[in-house]
């Protein structure tokens, strides 16, 4: 058990180190961005004195290293800073939007992950026959079309023509879960289409790889049904590669939904970020960047931890 524990501790420590390095990168990146925050807040007609005062008030005259540590210290205490443009507390504004983004990502994952694995299993069972080819063709086609195009086509067909679901997906607290899900049903469907192919193809490839093993032959010679063999003997040994690609796609569902949120005017993190980038609101951009990085690193860490635990040699040492 000690080796397993050691590996897990190492992996978690590595994740934290990575997050720390990313925070430096984000900070450095936002500093070298062209443009002046004070200028964009006060507008073109601001006087030089007003600009200088503004810079001093915002702490922009201090050396970058000092500013970084001030920022980091605040982060560690849960203080993401205040938005320059609105003067509101960033943590408060983000909290609600992050919840919305996670809500959308969660439901897209709930549908897409099992569906992808099931389709992968079916593709293996009927490999090189029509179900396999059909699944491959459809999922590949859906990943090849840009997601905003799929989104607009979906809005046109489902929302405008069929009138099954709204195209503007604003949700609020007064809605019931059912109403919320109905409201965001089109973005969920679009996101599912976008992430399905990757996960399904990886599941198929990983299981096909395992199907070459001698123990699969043993299972066949036990007279087991092909689907039993795939489910009971092949899938448990394909967990590591599959979980990795599943986690990558879940991270994409959180981090990469900017386009979808904008298309559907969904009140999530993505839209919040895009708004504040255009207003040069650096603290907000930094906070969003860091949260996205944390989600990405965290999910990948989960994938690695599951892979480590899935290895029977580590779980049950000699």
């Amino acid at each position: 058990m000690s080796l397993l524990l050691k590996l897990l501790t190492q992996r978690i420590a590595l994740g934290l180190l990575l997050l720390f390095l990313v925070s430096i990168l984000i900070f450095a990146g936002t500093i070298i961005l062209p443009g002046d925050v004070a200028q964009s807040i006060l507008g073109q007609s601001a006087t030089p004195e007003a600009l200088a005062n503004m810079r001093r008030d915002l702490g922009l005259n201090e050396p970058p290293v000092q500013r970084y540590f001030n920022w980091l210290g605040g982060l560690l205490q849960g203080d993401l800073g205040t938005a320059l443009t609105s003067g509101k507390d960033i943590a408060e504004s983000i909290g609600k939007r992050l919840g919305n983004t996670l809500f959308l990502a969660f439901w897209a994952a709930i549908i897409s992950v099992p569906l992808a694995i099931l389709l992968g299993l079916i593709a293996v069972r009927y490999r090189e026959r029509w179900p396999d080819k059909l699944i491959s063709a459809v999922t590949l086609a859906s990943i090849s079309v840009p997601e905003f195009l799929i989104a607009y086509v979906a809005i046109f067909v489902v929302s405008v023509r069929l009138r099954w679901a709204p195209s503007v997906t604003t949700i609020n607290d007064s809605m019931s879960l059912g109403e919320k899900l109905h409201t965001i049903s089109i973005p969920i469907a679009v996101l599912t289409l976008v992430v399905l192919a990757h996960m399904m193809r990886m599941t198929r490839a990983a299981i096909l790889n395992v199907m070459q093993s001698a123990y699969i032959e043993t299972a066949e010679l036990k007279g087991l049904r092909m689907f039993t063999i795939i489910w009971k003997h092949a899938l448990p040994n394909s967990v590591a590669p599959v979980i990795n690609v599943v986690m990558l796609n879940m991270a994409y569902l959180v981090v990469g939904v900017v386009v979808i949120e904008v298309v559907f005017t969904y009140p999530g993190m993505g839209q919040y970020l895009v708004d504040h980038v255009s207003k040069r609101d650096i603290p907000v951009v930094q906070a969003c960047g860091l949260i996205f990085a944390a989600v990405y690193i965290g999910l990948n860490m989960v994938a690695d931890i599951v892979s480590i635990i899935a290895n029977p040699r580590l779980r049950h040492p000699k």
Partner: protein
Amino acid sequence: MSDNLLKVRDLKIGATVYPPGEKPHDIEIVHGVSFEVEKGKVLGLIGESGAGKSTIGLASMAYGRGGVKITGGEVWVNGRDILKTSHTDVRALRGGEVTYVSQSAAASFNPAKKIMDQVTEAAILQGKFSSKEAVGRAIELFRKLGLPDPETIGNRYPHQVSGGQLQRCMTALALCPEPDLVVFDEPTTALDVTTQIDVLMAIKEAIRDTGVAALYITHDLAVVAQVSDDILVLKMGDMVEYGTVNQIINDPQEDYTKALVSVRSIEHEEKEPTPEPVLKVQNITARYKGTNFDVLKNINVELHPGQTLAVVGESGSGKSTLARVITGLLPQSNGSVHFAGRDLSKDLAGRKKDDLRELQMIYQMADVAMNPRQTVGTIIGRPLEFYFGLKGAEKHKRIIELLDEIEMGEAFIDRYPAELSGGQKQRVCIARALAAKPKMIICDEVTSALDPLVADGILKLLLDLQKIEDVAYLFITHDLATVKAIADSIAVMYQGEVVRYGGKSDVLSPPFDDYTDLLLSSVPEMKLGWLEDVIANRKMESAGN
């Protein structure tokens, strides 16, 4: 037909081959084989690699590995032709009526599932037993097969038991559903010789006690003679000879069978030690980086010019590590290697070109020891260029000389390794080693991957070359029959130590130390009833103690 559990008539099996540069086409690999197995009897299928014996074994379960297809004939099991029956019926046959034990239990067990679940799976799924009954039966089989902790060993994962134990678990897996027939496919080939004898006995007793019939597939006639009632000799997918075990072993009719029976009959006269050894290994102790135990402990051996020192031991005994120390791949922590009148530097970087030239190596896996994109001529020519600076016509002439020495000839000079058979590849490796005009060649299990007859040819060649070139061999092997055939002196290694060392006749004559005795008595002999004799002797000895 009712007496015959398995009846195979004119079985033909084909496969699709994909030769490089040619169109894929179908070939026939088994050409009309017929045999029968009665209830409770054991038929041995014997032949060299490519004889089609595994393919035939799997055909009795209506299974073709990879692109293998059964193209003709009949396979009757329990009164029905399983090649014409439904898919559902074939599934009921597999794992119910006929079960399979593979060569590598380590690969054939699912690493992610407990042993018990895998052993009982077929019995439960085929509806032969309830899961409680199946578990009880498995524990009973574990006990019968001599596994430690039969009550709990099933709760372990495959990587938590040893190779010999796992092979016995595989036998339990095959016997658990109470099949009528078990196909044993080289079940002891991958095991050490002292482990093999235990597994062999366990299998034999299990067959006798359960009254199950078996197809026993192996390339080792001495092994199959211990367990079979009848033997079918196969060669390149053809039946060579089919008879009772007594007739095949004691009165073989066909030349090929005679050759198989008389294999390992090389006579080699032991030579006297010379005053000046070519290799003197003194007090060698070595360990691998990052480990805290010595893999070699105070090794002392000598090798005389033009002679052969056989280093023999089981896997993990340290025999290959000794070769790594002598070649400088693993610097020793203590002791010295004295070679051709000089001390060799500990590590490879400190050795001179002549040190490298005079000490050559031949490996077990000839195909991975050669660059697949170089021709035989380039491979043999490389040491000629590197050590002697030979070029053009001179080099060409020497390459042809070497090809003649290994009994292959000029025609092979432009061939690629992929176009050669296993034995031919090993011959090219021998020629490459000889090209450097070495004083000594380290042969690391050079015949282990070869069929017995081919291995015999390689050993004869090595002995002939030793006479001509006066080269010394350090011959590393786990196979005592090879040792008897080729050695002048022998070092027996066990857990990093030399437990017995001396001239061949001294080492191989009693009184023995315990380990050498165990090792020698475990080598299967081409004699009926050998297995029972050995086991009876051991039981008597342990009772006497």
